[in-house]
């Protein structure tokens, strides 16, 4: 549950069957993200369906649906956020060719969890930014070919516009002050005025 003031922050979900652990991480992320908590795998899947979430902190070993199983379901579904696996062991491997984006070892202190989440938000932010540029360019191309009235009833234009708006909001919330590239992009005149 967000505290209402994190509206423009990245959205994180903390999943752990131990409520104490989930709640502790959630408090550690306050101010940085809008945080939700889930106390089990099934609950995590529902949370991801309900809302566009950016980063999930996923406890690996939960009774019932384990973290690995939740991850598999994410892959099967259309979840496009980043996943940080929280494990009890510290194998000290790079995340290269791991099925998740990063991992943290319990117990996780405030700085580590914040740094890991910020990092994933930045990576995701630039990914979304790339998508936004592509969609926004397309939107502008369609826009140039249509009159103001035609745009209103043009399904493809409306869908592209909605998608571009959504991506822009997401990129801004993920990148925060780093979203300058967006403003630069806006400033480029493409119609040769």
């Amino acid at each position, binding site marked *: *549950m967000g505290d209402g003031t994190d509206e423009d922050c990245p959205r994180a979900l903390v999943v752990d069957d131990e409520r104490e652990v989930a709640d502790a991480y959630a408090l550690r992320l306050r101010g940085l993200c809008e945080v939700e908590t889930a106390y089990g795998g099934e609950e995590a899947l529902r949370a991801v369906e309900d809302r566009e979430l950016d980063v999930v902190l996923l406890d690996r*070993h939960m009774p019932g649906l384990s973290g*690995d199983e939740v991850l598999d379901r994410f892959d099967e579904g259309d979840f496009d956020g980043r996943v940080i696996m929280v494990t009890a062991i510290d194998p000290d491997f790079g995340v290269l060719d791991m099925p998740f984006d990063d991992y943290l070892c319990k117990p996780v202190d405030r700085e580590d969890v914040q740094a890991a989440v910020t990092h994933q938000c930045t990576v995701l932010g630039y990914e979304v930014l790339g998508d936004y540029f592509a969609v926004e360019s397309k939107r502008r191309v369609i826009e140039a070919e249509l009159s103001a009235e035609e745009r209103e009833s043009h399904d493809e234009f409306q869908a592209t516009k909605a998608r571009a708006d959504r991506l822009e909001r997401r990129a801004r919330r993920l990148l925060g002050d780093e979203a300058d590239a967006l403003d630069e992009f806006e400033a480029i005149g493409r119609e040769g005025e």
Partner: protein
Amino acid sequence: MNDRARNAPIGMLDLTPDGTVRDLNPVARELLDLGATDAAGESIDTVFPESVEARVPGAFETPPERERSFDAYYPDLDRWLDVSLVPDGDTVYLYLRDRTEQRRTERQLADAREDVDRLTVTSELIADVLGELVAASTRAEIAETICAQLGETALYEFAWVGERAVGSDDLVMRAAAGVDNRTLDRIADELDGDGRVPERRAIESGEPETVQSLGEADAVAEPIRRAAFADGVQSLLAVPLTGGESVHGVVGVYASDRDAFSERERRNFGTVGEMAGFAVTAARNRSLLSADRVVELTFSLTDSEAPLVAAAEETETTLSVTGLIPDGDRLVCYLDAEGDAPRTVEHALDGEAVLGTRVVAAGEAGGSLELILDDSTPLGQLVGQGATLRTATYDAGEGRIVVELPPAADVRRIADAFTRVHHATVVAKRERRREATTVGEFRDALGDRLTDRQENVLRTAFFADYFESPRGSTAEEVAEALGITGPTLLHHLRAGQRKLLDEFFETTD
């Protein structure tokens, strides 16, 4: 706040309806970790520690009108608090109880219950494996049985069975089952002489090996640890398959749960290892029986108490055993008689050890008979020791019995035991190559397919001339010789014949 409230064993706060603290008792101060701070006059938002849902401060957003309670965890305090909120006129009381102990006990209880559930399921699984091992007859079957049973349950991710390669320190993967994953592939890469896999240590020491946290296990090759971490495989148990002093192989069982292999599970799996080792030994003995060299022993039996020796002498007939089928604690025996009429011979066959007789084919000076003997007879004793009867001929007070034994069998011990109990001597012993390998191979392959029961039924029916035309014995007679009903006999016969034909057509294709 009066003294009664001040000294109460639970925390109490006295607030205005807009959430300003008027007073609190020492227990509340302690539960909220307020120390010596003067909380009076402060807002509930600052006095109350953070929780994820922040429901206590939230309750004061508008003046509370009804009683409510909130059970929550406060990470900064590392404490569970059960808070009751009771409005009373222009005062709102908060009652605080510490629920931490209770919560943690509940959690431990849930964990313990889970352990018990897991152990129950594991025990059942192991009982199944043991049951199937008893029926497994070849090494390949043993390896596959273990893998299929352990690898394909939801309890474990995968299992594999390995053996030492012949003539080197390498391991060979005999069977594997379970979820497709990279860990198993990496293990397969590490099987050569110096590969660091836990199964190697188990095979070398003959003792089970457990790894609880594979990702962190420095003794295991890094590619395996890495793949295991990526796959979410945490723990493993490597159980050597031991038979007596020797280690035949090893089974590795992998789980995603760190605590999958408790002490009790390790012991249970140890039994699987011993049982599998035992089964491997048995399979090896079986393969020795079909080895291409055998020891042939010839006994001269002059024991007048032996029913066949006595009958041959009494009737002046030559008796030769044409077929012998061990059936539990008795033998079904088929004889050719030359000399007197089979009826006469049948009458001469008496004594406690003779459980039944029947004439199968009769002529003037000979025929054939069926004879049921108990296993205390000379033939019964030899068969019981693992010998295979080649010929047995009885004439004029002497029986000549030729048996085959595998080279590894304790030939001297078997011969001694026989001559000590009966009037008998060993007249020849020689080692020779086993005859006609193609026939032998065919028979072995068929033997693998047929159950013991089917083989016994086919053999008995054959020697009882059931397959002759006209039939030497009816189905009922053969069934009676085996102590089973007619329909049961026909069922086994049909199943046995089908397998026989299967093998025949496959072999000659």
